[in-house]
């Protein structure tokens, strides 16, 4: 069994699976159950300032996107930060941390963009014995209308300023949670770093409307006939999250800044992918909300099995392994040539590859009278669409051509040397290869 222990910012946890700041971490009851179920850590649901508690809607807070068998693919929510009194949360955090010293306990905070507000709450959070704080600069609904959450996260200067206050008034690790509702995630990440953040976590949820009720003409979830955009999460957002994580991981300005990966982590594989893209751990919410806390057992057994099979002895060894392979388009090897190949033994003759290629791509698949589908190498640009639409795994593969072979499509010899767009003759800005 591979060792899943992780050390994130000096905060140790028995595994890299933390529960994200969200409904599952709103109360002592839930968090104790989570720790008993084996979660490595939690980020307690966001605390607000002292005062009258936040008020939530009294109707549906969630909307969903399903697969055909009602597999939940995406979830959005319009729930606000904790609606329980600050003191109650702080007391509970203190008790739970004392009882589970080996688990990570991070407290998410969102208070107004005023120094005094942060100065007031930070010592009280510090007194709980929690291991660190996460600044909620991501929540896209409700709180952002009041100048908090994503409203802060969309302004790098604010991020930097608040992070600096937190580093000034709090002596444990500060994690800045980023919103994806921006154009370039590198900017807020760099701002957090300048403010002294120990790490960033991302992504928070994405502005979304999951569906519209065509009878009432109300967006879902609908509150008395009206809906508001909510934060989208779950398996559907994972590709967006991974891209943003990788941008921060490979940006020279923020490279090496610890990242806690969030966004659709549902299985061990999702976690391994986030970690390979530079995350020191992952945070999970939708998978737990869909299947219960027990889901972590599969994540742990799967990650451990995979690490054993690959010979990795610690999570640390996996962190960032894929980052060097994330590059800009302009650096992709244009001398790499592949061709689709259909395995006739596996083909079930559905013709989806043909429809996709003939109608929407390069007319590179031939169909015979007896429904045999073959690739026309003279036309195939190896776009991969046939592979993506084929219902049979590995029935169609992309086979790399070997240097020296002639590409029947271009009539050119496949070259051995790597060459990219920056030196390509068609590029008006090309520079001579050195």
């Amino acid at each position: 069994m591979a060792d899943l222990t992780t050390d994130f910012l000096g905060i140790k946890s028995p595994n890299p699976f933390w529960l994200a700041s969200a409904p599952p971490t709103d109360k002592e009851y839930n968090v104790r159950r989570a720790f008993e179920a084996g979660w490595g850590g939690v980020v307690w649901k966001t605390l607000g300032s002292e005062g009258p508690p936040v008020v939530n809607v009294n109707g549906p807070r969630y909307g969903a996107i399903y697969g055909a068998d009602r597999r939940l693919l995406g979830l959005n929510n319009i729930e606000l930060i904790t609606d329980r009194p600050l003191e109650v949360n702080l007391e509970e955090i203190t008790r739970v941390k004392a009882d589970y010293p080996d688990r990570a306990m991070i407290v998410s905070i969102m208070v107004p963009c005023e120094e005094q507000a942060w100065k007031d709450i930070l010592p009280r959070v510090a007194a709980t014995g929690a291991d660190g704080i996460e600044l909620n600069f991501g929540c896209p609904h409700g709180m952002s209308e009041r100048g908090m959450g994503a409203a802060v996260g969309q302004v790098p200067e604010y991020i930097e300023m608040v992070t600096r206050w937190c580093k000034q008034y709090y002596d444990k690790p500060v994690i800045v949670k980023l919103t994806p509702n921006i154009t370039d995630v590198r900017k807020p990440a760099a701002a957090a770093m300048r403010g002294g953040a120990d790490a960033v976590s991302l992504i928070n949820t994405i502005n979304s409307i999951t569906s519209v009720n065509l009878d009432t003409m109300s967006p879902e979830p609908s509150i008395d006939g009206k809906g508001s955009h909510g934060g989208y999460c779950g398996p559907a957002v994972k590709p967006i999250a991974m891209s943003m994580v990788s941008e921060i991981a490979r940006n020279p300005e923020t490279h090496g800044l610890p990242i806690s990966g969030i966004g659709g982590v549902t299985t061990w594989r999702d976690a391994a992918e986030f970690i390979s893209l530079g995350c020191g751990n992952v945070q999970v919410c939708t998978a737990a909300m869909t299947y219960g806390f027990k889901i972590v057992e599969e994540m742990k057994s799967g990650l451990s099995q995979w690490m054993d099979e690959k010979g990795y002895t610690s999570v640390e060894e996996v962190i960032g392994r894929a980052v060097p392979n994330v590059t800009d388009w302009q650096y992709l090897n244009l001398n790499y040539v592949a061709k689709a190949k259909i395995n006739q033994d596996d083909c079930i003759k559905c013709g989806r590859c043909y429809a996709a290629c003939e109608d929407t791509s390069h007319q590179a698949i031939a169909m015979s009278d007896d429904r045999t589908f073959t690739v026309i190498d003279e036309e195939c640009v190896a776009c991969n669409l046939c592979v993506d639409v084929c219902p049979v795994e590995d029935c169609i593969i992309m086979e790399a051509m070997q240097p020296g072979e002639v590409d029947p499509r271009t009539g050119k010899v496949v070259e051995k040397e790597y060459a990219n767009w920056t030196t390509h003759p068609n590029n008006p800005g090309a520079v001579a290869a050195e």
Partner: protein
Amino acid sequence: MSSPMTPGIAAARLPQEMLAENFDDLHAPYAPHEAAVAADRCYFCHDAPCVTACPTDIDIPLFIRQISTGTPESAAKTIFDQNILGGMCARVCPTEDLCEQACVRELAEGKPVEIGRLQRHATDTLMAKQRHPYDRAPETGKKIAVVGAGPAGLACAHRLAMHGHDVTIYDAEAKAGGLNEFGIAAYKSTDDFAAREVDWLMGIGGIEIKPGMRLGDDLTMESLTHCFDAVFLGVGLGGVNALRADGEDKGGVRDAVDFIKDLRQTDDLTALPVGRDVVVIGGGMTAVDAAVQSKLLGAQNVTIAYRRGRDAMSASEYEQDLAASKGVRLMFNAQPVAIHGNGAVREIELEYTSDNGTGLKGTGETIRLAADQVFKAIGQMLTTDGGLNLEGRKIAVTGAGRTSQAGVWAGGDCASGGDDLTVTAVAEGRDAAMDIHATLMGST
């Protein structure tokens, strides 16, 4: 070469290729894509009904999820943690009466998640890697005798060995495995799986099997309790109940378990004789196994005659359908009263029965069926009680298999309580092992 029409009892009624096909896996193993699609149907229920329905409490939603995330080896580990014979149980469990009956999709759609086949996919994957997945605890120096190398004894021995004890298994037969090896329809355990599973299980170390040792003949309870720190009896039910019908001793009348045993041990199905007109008496899994296999061997007419109605039949609806689909005739409310024939059976005389609430009674009306072979499958009985107290016709046990004698545990078909199923035997053997371990190590 004979044919299904050849009168009497004859071998080679069907050509070899057809026999090979007939006795192939009842359910072919899943291809990886099929397993993925089947696993995808699991809802990962909370406190899942399928787990409650499993005598060994396998965490079914977890192992199915592990299959769906591409780690069937971890899935197998989840299974083996609870049931070291999970490979055989995947093949022989009446899942339609257990986990799959409890599946919420059975309730919703009448189509449960195929838990048994998924379990086989996982366990086959891990076992194909020839890696025994458990390490043995440091040796304790304690010695335990297990009598009977069937599912209960093997499960008990493995768990004890895992905890560092030295285990000696005695078995009356020449081969280990018990009913897994000798008593299950061949098409449920192909490619010598029972023997392969025993070899794989022995990979834990610390277990020695001594075959050809029968309790009562070659072994005594006194010597066992004297030489070992604890004794576990998993001797099964060695005897077969009598028909109590006239002419029962005529030629061609056999115990179904012996017929099944011959089938399982033969390496040439064409050499195995079977009647043209076969009648199986009984209503359980053994009756179905014997009847279906008679048909698959090429018998022309096969009838299962059961003295009660369909509802009372202990063979599941699935097994009944399997028999019917192979061409076996199911006859209800008919009990044997006489076997006719001059030396060998030619006909069986059955009396119709009815039950008006005061117990099953013959109606006096009889029917004769042509029969050149009659298989008795009306239940097995205990042949060795080791001098222990009985409850009904089985060894009385309390708690985790404790018998009336201190230091002696029992489980499986020979012990009171629980259904006579492989999976129940495994659970009882495992739990007795834990109790033996706790007792010997002084934690109780």
